[in-house]
């Protein structure tokens, strides 16, 4: 069960207070009528399913009722940061790759949660999930 930092309440709360709402940063096309069927279909139905960094939309449903974003590692389930609507993530798959190359260990600031096992560490031990 996740322990989630609500960036509005500024507290860690149990997962039971939250609802996940899918991939974050899916903007509704400004002019839906101008979209082709394919573009509209992409917006409606197609989502990323990465192994690694994933930005997700959650809502503090049994709390402040605010929607916010979570950056989560889909293999380790670690939450790397949470941020308010309208903000951009400071940690992304690209930024982590850069940091890893430079040999830095990232620690997020403020209300953010810290970075844990990297992809490289996870991949270093063989064996499939059972």
């Amino acid at each position, binding site marked *: 069960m996740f322990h989630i930092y609500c960036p509005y309440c500024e507290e860690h709360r149990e997962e039971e207070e939250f609802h996940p709402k899918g991939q974050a940063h899916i903007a509704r096309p400004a002019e839906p009528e101008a*979209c082709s069927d394919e573009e509209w279909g992409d917006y409606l139905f197609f989502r990323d399913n990465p192994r690694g960094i994933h930005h997700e939309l959650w809502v503090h449903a049994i709390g402040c*009722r605010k929607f916010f974003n979570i950056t989560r590692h889909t293999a380790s*389930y*670690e939450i790397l940061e949470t941020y308010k*609507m309208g903000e951009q993530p400071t940690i992304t798959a690209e930024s982590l790759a850069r940091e890893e190359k430079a040999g830095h260990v990232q620690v997020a600031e403020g209300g953010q949660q810290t970075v844990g096992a990297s992809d490289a560490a996870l991949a*270093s031990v063989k064996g499939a999930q059972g």
Partner: protein
Amino acid sequence: MSQSPSQPNRLAQGGQVDRSRTLNFTFNGKRYSGHAGDTLASALLANGVDIVNRSFKYSRPRGIVAAGAEEPNAVVQLGASEAAQVPNVRATQQALYDGLTARSTNGWPNVQRDLMGMVGKVSGAFMPPGFYYKTFMAPASLWMTYEKYIRKGAGLGNSPTEADPDHYDHMNRHCDVLVVGAGPAGLAAALTAARSGSRVILCDEQEAMGGSLLDSREPIDGAPAVQWVERTLEALGAMDNVTLLPRTTANGYHDHNFVTLHERRTEHLGDTAPTRDGRRQVRSRLHRVRARQVVLATGTHERPLVYANNDVPGNLVAGAVSTYIRRYGVVPGNRLVLSTSNDHAYRAALDWHEAGREVVAIVDARANPDGELVERARALGIRVITDSAVIEAKGANRVSAARVAKIDAQLFTLAGRVEELACDTIASSGGYSPVIHLSSHTGTRPLWRDDILGFVPGTLKGMTSAGGAQGIYALPAVIADGIDAGSQAVQANGQSAEPFEAPLVAPIREGESVALYQIPHEKPTLRAPKQFVDLQNDVSAAGIEVATREGFESIEHVKRYTVMGFGTDQGKLGNINGMAIVARCLRRTIPEVGTTVFRPNYTPVTFGAIVGRHCRELFDPERYTALHQWHVEQGAEFEDVGQWKRPWYFPRTVNGKKESMHEAVARECLAVRERVGILDASTLGKIDIQGPDAREFLGRVYTNKWAKLAPGRVRYGLMCKDDGMLMDDGTTSCLGENHFLMTTTTGGAAGVLEWLELWHQTEWPELDVYFNSVTDHWATMTVTGPDARKLLAEITDIDLDREAFKFMDWREGTVAGVPARVFRISFTGELSFEINVQANYAMHVWKTLFEHGEKYQLTPYGTETMHVLRAEKGLIIVGQDTDGSVTPEDLGMQWAIGYDKPFAWIGKRALSRSDTRRTDRKQFVGLKPKDPKVVLEEGAQIVFDPKQAIPMVMSGHVTSSYYSPSLGQGFALAVVKGGHERMGDTVYLPMVDGTVHEAEIVSPVFIDPKGERQNV
């Protein structure tokens, strides 16, 4: 040493049992006695009980192998009465109490003489892995029949058929440091963290805390180790920041350091929890712990060696022998042969010897064992056979001899002649496996270490492991590592650690161990007597070899094919040996083979503990309207709608006979159509919407137009998702220029509010609008029927004139003297007024309506009548007549779609996709059965041609179907492909019993299509 006559294997002295307290117990119908401090397993061994179970697949006799959670065989069914039955209890973990009653879970009709055992003996050779899959595969329909007998034969324990008299609870906890395991490492870690001021929880699964120190030979600070355990526990117990949880298993390690602890509070006292002050105590408790740091001091499981017939009773792991002797004063046999790959197993032989029984030989796989313990054994005159191993156990129901030979582990062959040593017990040790189960629960990959020949936990933020769990086995090093882990945990929390000075423990010089898993035999593995790897699941080395030969190379596939490590065992004893055999067969290394992942729970948890208080009336919240008590007093039958309890119908007693639902609903329907009825509609979702942009927002989330809705007016709206599919409907009233009241379906209320917030917060934060749920604030009473106006007029100051208060208007005023909003909307097709008052006033208003309603025969009706009445009018219920694939156009509601609204409202674009423009979409229609007596089944499939071959083309289905008292016949609502163009067509509904109903497609509005009745 002498022995107790009633317990032939009990030593006169030694151990931590209280010989002055005798406890009687029953196992498989026979009475025995043991002592306070015993486990069921130690008491059985004390009484010389060899066979405790029959094996799962081959039904071979099985005895006790281990002394802790890793015990694979002694799995028993506990409980003297039916209500107290608990399956899947390990005898090694069950404290003995007076009157304990247990029986083997496997073995039919009994463990001593087992019918299935004959099958196993005869067909054992012909039961390769996958036997059940292959043999009982076809025909699939018979599997249920086979399974019944297989299960009876295998025996998987029984759940009680009577209600559990006990109760259970949950507790949420937070701590700075959770230490799992109270052995030397755990105690040291906990004490360090506690001294540093951290909030510490220390849990241990055993009856007593102390772990390996409870049977340790090694003195600490010059005194027996248990004294240090006592001192340390005393120190911890005296600190306010420490919570000690004995008899508590950390069963699951979940995301973000969430750990579930199962505390067995009274399981050591009896079948059911005792009472205190007349109240029954909580039997067990699930602690839900959110720990900032977790220290895993879970210790090790000793690996048995894999040799032929290693499952015959009398084969034990070496460490268990020491535990039984030193902790329980029980020697599980008379003549011991020890087979080992390492020094530490020598302890078993030394303990056996000191107990005054014969050690026939120590068989050591190493060429030149020379550690301190080896020298001590030799000095005692114990025969040590080097370069060798026990290759086979002899005996049927108990070991009678060990066959020993020189082996070449590298070439996997024998390297000398076989010697047979008479004995009744074989102890074996292939080294230790760190207990990494908990760390694996998190998805963390374990790491193989060649130096200790085992897996250790991988890295995880917030987790440390210490001592045996980390592959550190020498006692002084274990304590030092515990102190270190405690310090690390404290420092990781940003505090400074206050380690204590480690106690003095003399180091023991140990020789190097060798890697040893499966022992070669004279015959190849496939033809040798069975060499068991996973005793609980009856997986043998041959089975694993067959799996690799059949092409199962991934360890995960081998696991699933052979069932190794499945079930409640979770591979505690056998996993590493199994991987080693796969590695040998595939000529790979163990880390190349990899490991399967252990899953929660570590040991079985009863459903009672998982459920806690969340059962019966506390399973799910129940929501009552303000009028609930009145409904109860009127004898209403209730229906669950979401969490709400709604009156379903109000049966009356006529001539001493209670009405059936059919009779009650017919009466209620006619009352509404002919006079006046009343419905408690309080459960409808109500959302108060305010702000300068409220109107604009409504226009974006509803398909229809809101720009011109004036205060005092009400409009029905359809809400779609952006895929164009209907998600909710309801009326929204304009309370003021910037103020609206939206109603939703009863079940959709919370979801719609979240939906509105989603769009406002993520897409249109620039709109100045606010939402609030007011569902519970207002009670809603629907007065409906031709006499509705006359009745309401008696108790309201609102002008009810048909011109002053039109259909789809709302007015504010008083009803029965209290402030009210009255909405003239109709879900029945009749003249209707929905009276909203503050919930606290509801009962007063409701009763006043009935006082005045008597002369109109005011009739309360429930949800069933509401459904019939609305269906007669063709009014949909979202979620019944729609299913997430229905557009407003499919429903024939083009009138509620504002294609020319300026903003591209939610769902609009999708309605011009090619799929939503198809003309053969399922469309909403009415169905009139040709036989008026027929009430079609809801969900029945519709076909156009009943003579077509099976499988038929299904062209629609019935969504709502009732008997209409007003029409005097059955009628239905349905979705039919291209239905709007098929009015008057005949469709067919083939039923399961072979009958085929015929129905005519008609308009979904069956009564008053022009809407004159509601507009009077």
